[in-house]
């Protein structure tokens, strides 16, 4: 078959988005090599929706064969364990709320997969993320929100280095979910294919952080649960089981609704509150991992701020007091700002940069 353009590696999870992404490239006449990443062992895979499940892998293989492209399963389990799971546990063990998807994108999907692509002479990789890239005058490449905002996944991609972004294609980034579904139907993929993003880390009815703790044979960090008045209202068997803003499975009964306000990893104390207003923060500090055009910024900058996936970005001001640290003030308070989560800064749809939340106030 005659192909146009250079060879491209398409990450295929077996889900509808990456299926359509690969199909669109094939339709364009590109030479596409489909790959599915095996990140966890079949027997430890958690949910059917997970992108690593055996069923999804074989679905991806089936899709590839119908598209007439080669398909390979790349075993990155060891790297996933070392780069993503270890970090995730380290964060939980410090009472923080990790975001493994961001790390996985940075290290695995837009890291190792690039090495594979290079090895097979492919200059670009494609994924089914709802995000776009934009070439700015001067040659730099920016990450942008997906055009269809309800599905936008740019939040999970903020830390992908700029040098990589120029070699990434997001074929569904300019489409709506409905359009993706209808293309999938047009292509004859009638069977129910669901979404996989974010499902690698979900376990039905089980505490993921507890599974990680057992996996690494790490000790738990048990301690006290401190009530709103500063008295001990209970005990817990590990700070890794808590996250800021959590309102369920606290293991205590105060007779009224309560939430985790903060976690102190030093004393292993989990502080709870019965005032939902206590969960509101006016600002945060974060360690910056990426800022477009370099981190050496001066002066306060006004932009849009997002502290978790599926949160409407709020307006605020970013200051750069010292190298690698940002101080952020929100115009309107945000609820449950959790250390360990990513904060991402936007100018309209364009991703300016982002970092890891260290504290909130």
């Amino acid at each position, binding site marked *: 078959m005659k192909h146009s353009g250079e060879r491209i590696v398409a990450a295929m999870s077996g889900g509808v988005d990456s299926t359509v992404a690969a199909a669109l490239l094939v339709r364009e006449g590109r030479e596409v*090599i489909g790959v599915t990443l*095996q990140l966890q062992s*079949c027997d430890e895979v958690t949910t059917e929706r997970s992108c690593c499940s055996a069923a999804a892998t074989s679905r991806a293989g089936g899709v590839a064969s119908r598209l007439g492209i*080669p398909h*390979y*399963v790349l*075993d990155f389990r060891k790297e996933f364990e070392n780069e993503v799971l270890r970090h995730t546990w380290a964060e939980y063990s410090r009472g923080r709320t990790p975001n493994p998807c961001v790390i996985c994108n940075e290290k695995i999907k837009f890291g190792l997969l690039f090495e594979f692509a*290079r*090895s*097979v002479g492919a200059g670009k990789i494609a994924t089914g993320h709802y995000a776009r890239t934009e070439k700015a005058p001067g040659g730099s490449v920016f990450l942008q929100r997906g055009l269809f905002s309800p599905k936008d996944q740019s939040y999970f991609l903020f830390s992908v280095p700029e040098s990589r972004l120029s070699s990434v294609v997001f074929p569904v980034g300019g489409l709506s979910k409905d359009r993706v579904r209808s293309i999938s139907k047009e292509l004859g993929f009638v069977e129910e294919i669901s979404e996989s993003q974010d499902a690698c880390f979900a376990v039905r009815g089980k505490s993921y952080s507890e599974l990680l703790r057992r996996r690494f044979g790490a000790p738990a960090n048990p301690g006290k649960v401190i009530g709103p008045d500063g008295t001990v209202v209970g005990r817990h068997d590990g700070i890794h089981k808590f996250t800021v803003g959590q309102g369920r499975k606290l293991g205590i009964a105060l007779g009224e609704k309560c939430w985790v306000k903060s976690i102190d990893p030093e004393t292993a104390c989990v502080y709870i509150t019965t005032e939902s207003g206590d969960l509101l923060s006016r600002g945060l500090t974060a360690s910056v991992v990426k800022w477009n055009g370099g981190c050496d910024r001066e002066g306060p900058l006004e932009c849009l701020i997002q502290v978790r996936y599926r949160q409407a970005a709020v307006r605020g001001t970013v200051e750069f007091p010292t190298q690698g640290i940002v101080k952020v003030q929100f115009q309107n308070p945000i609820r449950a700002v959790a250390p360990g989560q990513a904060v991402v800064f936007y100018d309209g749809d364009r991703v300016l940069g982002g970092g890891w939340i260290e504290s909130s106030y």
Partner: protein
Amino acid sequence: MPKIYFDNNATTRLDASVFEEMLPFLRDNYGNPSSLHSFGREARRALDNARAHVANLIGAEPGEIVFTSGGTEADNQAIIGTVDIIGKPGGRIITSAVEHQAVLNSCQHLQNKGYRTTLLPVDREGRIKLADLDKALDNDAVLVSIMYANNETGSIQPVEEAASIAKSRGILFHCDGVQAAGRLPIDVRKLGVDLFSLSSHKINGPKGSGALFVRRGILAPVLIHGGHHEQRRRAGTENVASIVGFGEACRLAKQRLDETARNCATLRDRLEKRIIEEVQPAVLNSCRGICLPNTLNVSFPGVDGQFLAINLDLMGIAVSTGSACHAESREPSYVLKAMGRSDDEASSCIRFSLGRENTIEEVDAVVLALKELVRSLRAT
């Protein structure tokens, strides 16, 4: 460039004459071998004919051959069926750490049901030590299962000696001969085994058939229960066309045994020599001499075996990183790990398995591709 197939331990091309033999049984001769009428008799005759060819390949009597759906079923039947018959609670199965998954997972299944398993270690060449076997044979032992030749490395086990040790203790001996039957001269009498598994598609026969040799005089293990087929040793209407093909493949294999082995060995030796000399550093995982003549397993330290195999595939060269039956998980090969190879060596290995159709030109083309790819993969 025409494609090159160096993955004959995964499966082989259906021989043209095997295909011709099968055709009538896919068209007009559709009888059930168990039927009393002419259609049935015709199928029965074909089945008997095939049985004679399979038996002849390994020096057995036709009545000792039980047709199965393949090597995996034969292994399951030998292990699970035997343990079932002996019915000794907590009984022990002794096998090796480098067996095919069909054997290892049958043992695992039994272990989950309260039986016990001993995995004999292997040396750097992939062979068990007879002294280890001797030690492992305690009063609870009910079955020994040792493969003839390893699918990943081609290493050949001391089956005759092992079987004789088991026999001296009155313990049944099974041998997974899937990679060996039709590639090496096999005589089950000389080997002294009680049970021996064969597969059709490894020797240019069709997929979907295999056989278990069950020595006359032992109680036949049964896995699949139902009608009186195969003398009640394997229920279910026989896969006549596939079995006919299997029989013909065995006849041809026997006829061509020396020629095929010689040709494969010549090519394998050339491939090995050129790789060792020209694609350094390369670590040989299969040994010379006591090895399948067609199998070469090499590690290229510093190179990811899966990247290398994929790149070869994109160039039209089919090899594997290990067992095709183990492909879902590309864990560093448990076979190579058991042979004392490091994680890096085990995850950088490539298995080349040759067949009767391969040529010297193909060997040279593969070496050329390897040199180029290994250099560029090492550079990244």
